[in-house]
Protein backbone atom coordinates (compact mmCIF):
# COMPACT_ATOMS: atom_id res chain seq x y z
CA UNK A 1 0.00 0.00 0.00
CA UNK A 2 1.46 3.28 -1.13
CA UNK A 3 2.29 6.08 1.26
CA UNK A 4 1.23 9.32 -0.37
CA UNK A 5 2.42 12.64 0.90
CA UNK A 6 -0.68 14.82 0.78
CA UNK A 7 0.56 18.39 0.37
CA UNK A 8 -1.89 19.44 3.08
CA UNK A 9 -2.09 16.54 5.55
CA UNK A 10 1.32 14.90 5.18
CA UNK A 11 2.09 11.24 4.47
CA UNK A 12 -1.02 9.09 4.54
CA UNK A 13 -1.99 5.58 3.51
CA UNK A 14 -3.16 4.96 -0.04
CA UNK A 15 -6.60 3.81 1.14
CA UNK A 16 -7.39 7.42 2.05
CA UNK A 17 -6.93 8.53 -1.57
CA UNK A 18 -8.58 8.20 -4.94
CA UNK A 19 -6.89 8.26 -8.29
CA UNK A 20 -7.46 10.77 -11.07
CA UNK A 21 -5.17 9.43 -13.80
CA UNK A 22 -3.08 11.69 -15.98
CA UNK A 23 -2.40 15.28 -14.87
CA UNK A 24 -2.10 18.41 -16.96
CA UNK A 25 -4.86 17.60 -19.44
CA UNK A 26 -6.61 20.94 -19.79
CA UNK A 27 -10.20 20.96 -20.92
CA UNK A 28 -10.40 22.70 -24.28
CA UNK A 29 -11.72 26.23 -23.86
CA UNK A 30 -13.92 25.89 -26.91
CA UNK A 31 -14.89 22.26 -27.22
CA UNK A 32 -17.15 22.97 -30.15
CA UNK A 33 -14.21 24.23 -32.15
CA UNK A 34 -12.51 20.85 -31.94
CA UNK A 35 -12.92 18.22 -34.61
CA UNK A 36 -13.96 14.73 -33.59
CA UNK A 37 -10.41 13.42 -33.55
CA UNK A 38 -9.13 16.13 -31.26
CA UNK A 39 -12.12 15.78 -28.98
CA UNK A 40 -11.58 12.01 -28.80
CA UNK A 41 -7.95 12.66 -27.99
CA UNK A 42 -8.89 14.93 -25.12
CA UNK A 43 -11.65 12.68 -23.88
CA UNK A 44 -10.19 9.20 -24.16
CA UNK A 45 -6.57 9.01 -25.22
CA UNK A 46 -4.10 8.35 -22.46
CA UNK A 47 -0.34 8.56 -22.19
CA UNK A 48 -0.44 5.62 -19.78
CA UNK A 49 3.25 6.17 -19.16
CA UNK A 50 5.53 3.33 -18.22
CA UNK A 51 8.06 5.37 -16.32
CA UNK A 52 7.58 8.64 -14.49
CA UNK A 53 3.94 9.54 -14.79
CA UNK A 54 2.43 12.87 -13.80
CA UNK A 55 -0.93 12.06 -12.32
CA UNK A 56 -3.66 13.40 -10.08
CA UNK A 57 -4.78 12.11 -6.72
CA UNK A 58 -7.40 13.34 -4.31
CA UNK A 59 -7.28 12.87 -0.56
CA UNK A 60 -10.85 11.67 -0.57
CA UNK A 61 -11.00 10.37 3.00
CA UNK A 62 -8.95 13.27 4.33
CA UNK A 63 -8.95 16.92 3.28
CA UNK A 64 -10.67 16.14 -0.05
CA UNK A 65 -8.15 18.25 -1.97
CA UNK A 66 -6.79 17.32 -5.38
CA UNK A 67 -3.07 17.48 -6.08
CA UNK A 68 -0.47 16.18 -8.51
CA UNK A 69 1.97 13.35 -8.05
CA UNK A 70 4.98 12.30 -10.08
CA UNK A 71 5.24 8.55 -9.72
CA UNK A 72 7.29 5.84 -11.34
CA UNK A 73 4.68 3.39 -12.60
CA UNK A 74 7.10 0.47 -12.47
CA UNK A 75 8.71 0.89 -9.06
CA UNK A 76 5.77 2.94 -7.68
CA UNK A 77 8.30 5.32 -6.17
CA UNK A 78 6.84 8.78 -5.69
CA UNK A 79 9.30 11.40 -6.90
CA UNK A 80 7.33 14.56 -6.24
CA UNK A 81 4.04 15.89 -4.97
CA UNK A 82 2.83 19.33 -6.02
CA UNK A 83 -0.41 21.28 -5.85
CA UNK A 84 -2.99 21.64 -8.59
CA UNK A 85 -2.11 24.42 -10.96
CA UNK A 86 1.62 24.16 -10.29
CA UNK A 87 4.08 23.23 -13.01
CA UNK A 88 5.70 19.80 -12.64
CA UNK A 89 9.17 19.86 -11.11
CA UNK A 90 12.21 18.83 -13.17
CA UNK A 91 12.53 15.08 -12.87
CA UNK A 92 14.89 12.47 -14.22
CA UNK A 93 13.64 10.65 -17.31
CA UNK A 94 13.05 6.99 -16.71
CA UNK A 95 12.48 4.76 -19.66
CA UNK A 96 11.28 1.21 -19.57
CA UNK A 97 10.49 -0.98 -22.54
Amino acid at each position, binding site marked *: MLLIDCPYCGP*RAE*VEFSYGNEAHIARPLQPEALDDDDWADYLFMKTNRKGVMLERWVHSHG*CRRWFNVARDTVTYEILAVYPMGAKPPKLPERSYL
Partner: protein
Amino acid sequence: MPEETLRLSALASLGLAAHAVAARAPEQGIALRELPLPALLNLRLDPKETAAAKAAARTLGLLLPDLGQAGLAKELVAYRLGPDEWWIKMEGPAAALETKLRAALGDSHAAVTEIGEGWAQIEVSGPQARSLLAKGCPLDFHPRAFAIGEVKQSLLSKADAVYRLISDDDDASGALFEITIRRSFADYAWRWLADAAGEYGLAVLS
Protein backbone atom coordinates in the same frame (compact mmCIF):
# COMPACT_ATOMS: atom_id res chain seq x y z
CA MET B 1 -37.39 26.51 19.93
CA PRO B 2 -38.64 22.97 19.54
CA GLU B 3 -38.29 20.59 22.41
CA GLU B 4 -35.00 18.75 22.86
CA THR B 5 -36.98 15.65 23.70
CA LEU B 6 -38.14 15.38 20.11
CA ARG B 7 -34.58 14.73 19.02
CA LEU B 8 -33.13 11.28 18.44
CA SER B 9 -29.43 10.64 18.32
CA ALA B 10 -27.88 8.53 15.61
CA LEU B 11 -27.25 5.75 18.12
CA ALA B 12 -30.67 5.90 19.77
CA SER B 13 -31.67 2.53 18.36
CA LEU B 14 -28.76 0.77 20.09
CA GLY B 15 -30.28 1.46 23.52
CA LEU B 16 -26.88 2.17 25.01
CA ALA B 17 -28.24 3.69 28.21
CA ALA B 18 -29.51 0.32 29.35
CA HIS B 19 -26.04 -1.07 29.99
CA ALA B 20 -24.07 2.13 30.48
CA VAL B 21 -21.99 2.62 33.61
CA ALA B 22 -20.45 5.66 35.24
CA ALA B 23 -16.85 4.56 34.99
CA ARG B 24 -14.60 1.98 33.36
CA ALA B 25 -13.48 -0.87 35.60
CA PRO B 26 -9.70 -1.22 35.95
CA GLU B 27 -9.62 -4.54 34.09
CA GLN B 28 -11.42 -3.00 31.12
CA GLY B 29 -9.08 -1.58 28.53
CA ILE B 30 -11.58 0.51 26.62
CA ALA B 31 -14.45 2.83 27.36
CA LEU B 32 -16.87 4.06 24.70
CA ARG B 33 -19.29 6.90 25.18
CA GLU B 34 -21.79 8.49 22.87
CA LEU B 35 -21.27 12.23 23.02
CA PRO B 36 -24.22 14.63 22.92
CA LEU B 37 -25.49 15.65 19.49
CA PRO B 38 -22.86 18.05 18.23
CA ALA B 39 -23.54 21.59 17.11
CA LEU B 40 -21.19 22.08 14.16
CA LEU B 41 -20.61 24.76 11.59
CA ASN B 42 -18.61 24.16 8.47
CA LEU B 43 -16.55 27.22 7.61
CA ARG B 44 -14.90 27.57 4.24
CA LEU B 45 -12.59 30.41 3.36
CA ASP B 46 -9.19 30.92 1.85
CA PRO B 47 -6.85 32.00 4.68
CA LYS B 48 -4.89 34.02 2.14
CA GLU B 49 -7.93 36.28 1.99
CA THR B 50 -6.79 37.98 5.15
CA ALA B 51 -9.83 40.14 5.68
CA ALA B 52 -12.15 37.17 5.75
CA ALA B 53 -9.80 35.14 7.90
CA LYS B 54 -9.46 37.97 10.37
CA ALA B 55 -13.19 38.54 10.51
CA ALA B 56 -13.78 34.88 11.18
CA ALA B 57 -11.08 34.74 13.82
CA ARG B 58 -12.47 37.80 15.57
CA THR B 59 -15.96 36.42 15.59
CA LEU B 60 -14.83 33.06 16.91
CA GLY B 61 -12.42 34.53 19.42
CA LEU B 62 -9.40 32.50 18.34
CA LEU B 63 -6.68 32.32 15.78
CA LEU B 64 -7.79 29.99 13.03
CA PRO B 65 -5.80 26.84 13.78
CA ASP B 66 -3.27 25.30 11.40
CA LEU B 67 -3.87 22.13 9.44
CA GLY B 68 -4.23 19.11 11.65
CA GLN B 69 -4.85 21.20 14.73
CA ALA B 70 -7.82 22.06 16.88
CA GLY B 71 -8.01 25.51 18.42
CA LEU B 72 -9.89 26.15 21.64
CA ALA B 73 -11.78 29.29 22.49
CA LYS B 74 -14.47 30.17 24.97
CA GLU B 75 -17.28 27.68 24.46
CA LEU B 76 -16.10 26.52 21.09
CA VAL B 77 -13.47 24.42 19.32
CA ALA B 78 -12.25 25.02 15.80
CA TYR B 79 -10.91 22.03 13.85
CA ARG B 80 -8.82 22.67 10.77
CA LEU B 81 -9.75 20.00 8.23
CA GLY B 82 -8.22 21.29 5.05
CA PRO B 83 -6.42 24.23 3.53
CA ASP B 84 -9.68 26.18 3.37
CA GLU B 85 -11.95 24.29 5.71
CA TRP B 86 -12.72 24.37 9.43
CA TRP B 87 -15.31 22.94 11.70
CA ILE B 88 -16.60 24.99 14.60
CA LYS B 89 -18.03 22.89 17.40
CA MET B 90 -19.95 24.58 20.17
CA GLU B 91 -22.32 23.96 22.98
CA GLY B 92 -25.92 24.71 22.10
CA PRO B 93 -27.43 25.53 18.73
CA ALA B 94 -25.23 26.78 15.91
CA ALA B 95 -27.72 29.10 14.26
CA ALA B 96 -26.72 32.19 16.24
CA LEU B 97 -23.04 31.82 15.45
CA GLU B 98 -23.88 31.06 11.85
CA THR B 99 -25.67 34.38 11.60
CA LYS B 100 -22.85 36.22 13.33
CA LEU B 101 -20.22 34.65 11.08
CA ARG B 102 -22.15 35.41 7.93
CA ALA B 103 -22.54 38.99 9.01
CA ALA B 104 -18.86 39.31 9.85
CA LEU B 105 -17.77 37.76 6.56
CA GLY B 106 -19.98 40.06 4.53
CA ASP B 107 -19.30 39.74 0.83
CA SER B 108 -16.04 37.82 1.22
CA HIS B 109 -15.86 34.54 -0.60
CA ALA B 110 -16.66 32.21 2.25
CA ALA B 111 -19.26 29.62 3.13
CA VAL B 112 -20.86 28.88 6.45
CA THR B 113 -23.02 25.78 6.68
CA GLU B 114 -24.67 24.09 9.59
CA ILE B 115 -23.76 20.41 9.52
CA GLY B 116 -23.95 19.08 13.08
CA GLU B 117 -27.15 17.13 12.49
CA GLY B 118 -25.32 15.01 9.96
CA TRP B 119 -22.63 13.79 12.33
CA ALA B 120 -22.30 11.80 15.52
CA GLN B 121 -19.48 11.80 18.03
CA ILE B 122 -18.08 8.90 19.99
CA GLU B 123 -15.52 9.14 22.75
CA VAL B 124 -12.94 6.35 22.95
CA SER B 125 -10.78 6.19 26.03
CA GLY B 126 -8.72 3.80 28.07
CA PRO B 127 -5.25 2.30 28.14
CA GLN B 128 -5.98 0.34 24.92
CA ALA B 129 -7.57 3.24 23.04
CA ARG B 130 -4.66 3.52 20.62
CA SER B 131 -4.55 -0.23 19.94
CA LEU B 132 -8.27 -0.23 19.33
CA LEU B 133 -8.23 2.63 16.84
CA ALA B 134 -5.24 1.15 15.02
CA LYS B 135 -7.39 -1.84 14.14
CA GLY B 136 -9.58 0.26 11.91
CA CYS B 137 -7.53 3.26 10.97
CA PRO B 138 -4.27 3.58 9.03
CA LEU B 139 -3.17 6.64 11.04
CA ASP B 140 -0.23 6.31 13.42
CA PHE B 141 -1.67 6.96 16.88
CA HIS B 142 1.67 6.74 18.70
CA PRO B 143 2.23 9.80 20.96
CA ARG B 144 5.20 10.72 18.76
CA ALA B 145 2.87 10.89 15.78
CA PHE B 146 -0.43 12.10 17.22
CA ALA B 147 -0.31 14.73 19.94
CA ILE B 148 -2.96 16.26 22.14
CA GLY B 149 -4.93 18.86 20.25
CA GLU B 150 -4.33 17.30 16.87
CA VAL B 151 -7.18 16.55 14.49
CA LYS B 152 -6.90 14.11 11.60
CA GLN B 153 -9.39 12.87 9.07
CA SER B 154 -9.14 9.28 7.98
CA LEU B 155 -11.12 6.06 8.06
CA LEU B 156 -12.56 3.81 10.71
CA SER B 157 -12.69 0.57 8.79
CA LYS B 158 -15.18 1.45 6.03
CA ALA B 159 -16.48 4.75 7.40
CA ASP B 160 -14.97 8.21 7.21
CA ALA B 161 -13.87 9.47 10.60
CA VAL B 162 -12.35 12.58 12.16
CA TYR B 163 -10.06 11.88 15.12
CA ARG B 164 -9.14 14.35 17.83
CA LEU B 165 -6.89 13.51 20.77
CA ILE B 166 -8.29 15.33 23.75
CA SER B 167 -6.16 14.06 26.59
CA ASP B 168 -3.44 11.53 27.13
CA ASP B 169 -2.53 10.51 30.64
CA ASP B 170 0.41 8.29 31.40
CA ASP B 171 -1.44 6.60 34.21
CA ALA B 172 -3.98 3.87 33.84
CA SER B 173 -6.62 6.09 32.25
CA GLY B 174 -4.79 6.23 28.93
CA ALA B 175 -5.70 8.35 25.94
CA LEU B 176 -9.05 9.93 25.19
CA PHE B 177 -10.06 10.40 21.58
CA GLU B 178 -13.14 12.01 20.12
CA ILE B 179 -14.24 10.42 16.87
CA THR B 180 -16.70 12.12 14.55
CA ILE B 181 -18.63 9.90 12.16
CA ARG B 182 -21.34 10.59 9.61
CA ARG B 183 -24.72 10.04 11.13
CA SER B 184 -25.73 7.08 8.99
CA PHE B 185 -22.41 5.34 9.68
CA ALA B 186 -22.52 5.88 13.44
CA ASP B 187 -24.37 2.67 14.20
CA TYR B 188 -21.85 0.72 12.13
CA ALA B 189 -18.90 2.51 13.70
CA TRP B 190 -20.14 1.87 17.22
CA ARG B 191 -20.76 -1.82 16.58
CA TRP B 192 -17.39 -2.10 14.91
CA LEU B 193 -15.58 -0.46 17.82
CA ALA B 194 -17.46 -2.50 20.40
CA ASP B 195 -16.61 -5.71 18.56
CA ALA B 196 -12.95 -4.78 18.16
CA ALA B 197 -12.73 -3.78 21.82
CA GLY B 198 -13.85 -7.25 22.88
CA GLU B 199 -10.39 -8.57 23.62
CA TYR B 200 -9.56 -5.59 25.86
CA GLY B 201 -12.74 -5.49 27.91
CA LEU B 202 -15.28 -2.81 27.10
CA ALA B 203 -17.14 -0.35 29.27
CA VAL B 204 -20.00 1.72 27.84
CA LEU B 205 -20.10 4.99 29.68
CA SER B 206 -23.17 7.05 30.34
